[in-house]
């Protein structure tokens, strides 16, 4: 494994050099929320946070994106141009693992060119999670504060410097492009980073033993728990919009004057319109069915189709739910009832 170091006093230059080669995205404040946005020259991204409000999926799978454009009365379809080469700096290991999960969906039988082209052209620079949030439970979902899955490079804050662990060819390219700012990392640095992430892992207080949950879920299909946990649900969809593994979308046409576009936008299985038939029939008519589907999709159906749980334990759905519905409470109840 290749380790380098960049001292904090050179980190501004590091960011500036990244931004010169590729479009650089990093966490920045927009109102109350922290999200990945393009870094303007000279501006400093926020690199001290438990996690961003909006996961980095918003860069690779934008909330709304144009599939193609057309003009009224004309059947010429024009596809968007090539995706830009990009770098995401400050991706939490849980969110990178989520990207690996979303990858399997978007390349399942039919490739999704919009997502995959951007994914291919984007380098993910992760940031070890040394201060896990209150509701983080990544270690229960197979991850950890310094998990490297899905990342091209992992940075760890050593205090005076960042340790850089290069993981892929894409990461190596970044490494080479900024090498004048880097110094060799000593063995102590690597050991120290490992110690920091071990300590961080020990500070994760929430969790669940996920073994067997995929098999247990179908057994408790008719359980009252689905009604109980969805009774307070407002159907706002925040648990899915800001979930790093949620990938569902709608496709709509938009006209502005004579200019039109067919675009896709995030959608949520927690909305009643999501499954509403034109006839008025709805196969998932209430929040009970929709909550049950959301949980089953993540912890059972996705496992059946892709061999992995579609949850990385980032805790956003718990942190952001306006009525405090807690996925770990639901899963604990699932485990309890299925025994």
């Amino acid at each position: 494994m290749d380790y380098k170091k960049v001292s904090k006093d050179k980190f501004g230059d590091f960011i500036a050099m990244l931004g010169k080669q590729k479009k650089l995205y990093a966490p920045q404040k927009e109102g109350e929320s922290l999200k990945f946005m393009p870094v303007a020259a000279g501006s400093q991204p926020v690199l001290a946070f438990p996690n961003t409000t909006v996961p980095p999926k918003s860069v690779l799978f934008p909330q709304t994106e144009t599939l193609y454009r057309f003009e009224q009365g004309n059947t010429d379809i024009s596809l968007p141009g090539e995706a830009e080469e990009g770098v995401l700096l400050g991706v939490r290991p849980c969110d990178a693992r989520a990207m690996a999960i979303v990858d399997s969906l978007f390349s399942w039988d039919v490739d999704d060119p919009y997502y995959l082209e951007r994914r291919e052209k984007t380098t993910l620079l992760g940031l070890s999670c040394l201060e896990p949030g209150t509701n983080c439970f990544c270690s229960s979902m197979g991850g950890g504060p310094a998990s490297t899955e899905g990342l091209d490079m992992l940075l760890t804050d050593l205090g005076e410097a960042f340790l850089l662990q290069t993981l892929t060819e894409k990461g190596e390219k970044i490494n080479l492009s900024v090498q004048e700012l880097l110094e060799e990392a000593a063995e102590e640095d690597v050991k120290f980073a490992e110690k920091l992430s071990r300590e961080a892992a020990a500070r994760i207080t929430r969790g669940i033993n996920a073994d067997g949950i995929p098999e247990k879920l179908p057994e408790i299909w008719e359980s009252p728990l689905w009604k109980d946990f969805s009774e307070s649900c407002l159907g706002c969809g925040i648990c899915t919009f800001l979930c790093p593994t949620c990938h569902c979308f709608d496709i709509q046409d938009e006209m502005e004057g004579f200019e039109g576009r067919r675009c896709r936008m995030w959608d949520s299985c927690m909305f009643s319109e999501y499954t509403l038939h034109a006839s008025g029939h709805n196969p998932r008519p209430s929040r009970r069915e929709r909550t049950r589907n959301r949980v089953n999709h993540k912890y059972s159906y996705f496992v059946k189709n892709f061999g992995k749980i579609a949850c990385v334990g980032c805790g956003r759905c718990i942190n952001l739910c306006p009525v405090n519905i807690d996925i770990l409470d639901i899963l604990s109840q699932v485990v309890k009832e299925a025994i």
Partner: protein
Amino acid sequence: MKENGNPYKPEIATVEDTWYETYGDRCIKTLKVVLDDEKARESWGHRPGQCAMIGVLGVGESMISISCSPTEGKFLRFSVMRMGKVTQALHELEPGDKMTVRGPYGNSFPVEEWKGKNILTIGGGIGQAPLRPIIEYVKANRGDYGKLTLIYGARTSGDLCFKGEFEGLNACSDINYHLSIDVQEEGWPHYVGFVPSLLMDVNPSPENTIAITCGPPIMIRFVLENLKKLNFADEQIYTTLENRMKCGFGKCGRCNVGGLYVCKDGPVFSYDTLKNVPEAFA
């Protein structure tokens, strides 16, 4: 972005002919369309039971079952009920107008596996649209299949689709059709009642027979019950599911029944598969 292989990019098609199947609030119009691009037309190759995402630029797209068999020619037919924004726009199309088509999507009726068997179709209302291609396919390959029996009902005689196509079937000795409407109308010579009871009235033998049913969820539920009463095995019963769809190839998420996607794993399912799938008949 590459022009080729983009699964969201539709083909442009020209409407060749249109006609109304039924009238009223939820009228059904059939569009006969031809893909503009010659290569696309040649390589289209749909199979009975598949769907296509059809639309009007500036309005949107809807998943509609392809209601013709590939044996009928190098065109496509869609029978569309006017329900919302997109289907309204599709209804407004006239011969010569352009629309978008992408697909074909989903699996299809296992016509190879069914060779040598009797085919029984049980349809209700617009549910006859996905059945029409298998009927036409069996008619075009008459020697490969046994008896063909059609059971089809709608609320009123005015709500029956493809009416003109049933009369001609009388000429064939091994094809039978049975129609029903809910309430007696003057001069109606066929059955009066619901499709599930017409099925019991026809009393088909399950021997070497495949039963395929499409229609409103409530009808399907009772047809399945009655097919069981007639001793059809779960593996002999097929249906097509429909759910709201946006992409057509397993990405957008919404058409799932349990862990299956209607767009990818369906729309054709055997009852043997569906009986264990949660929400399949929700």
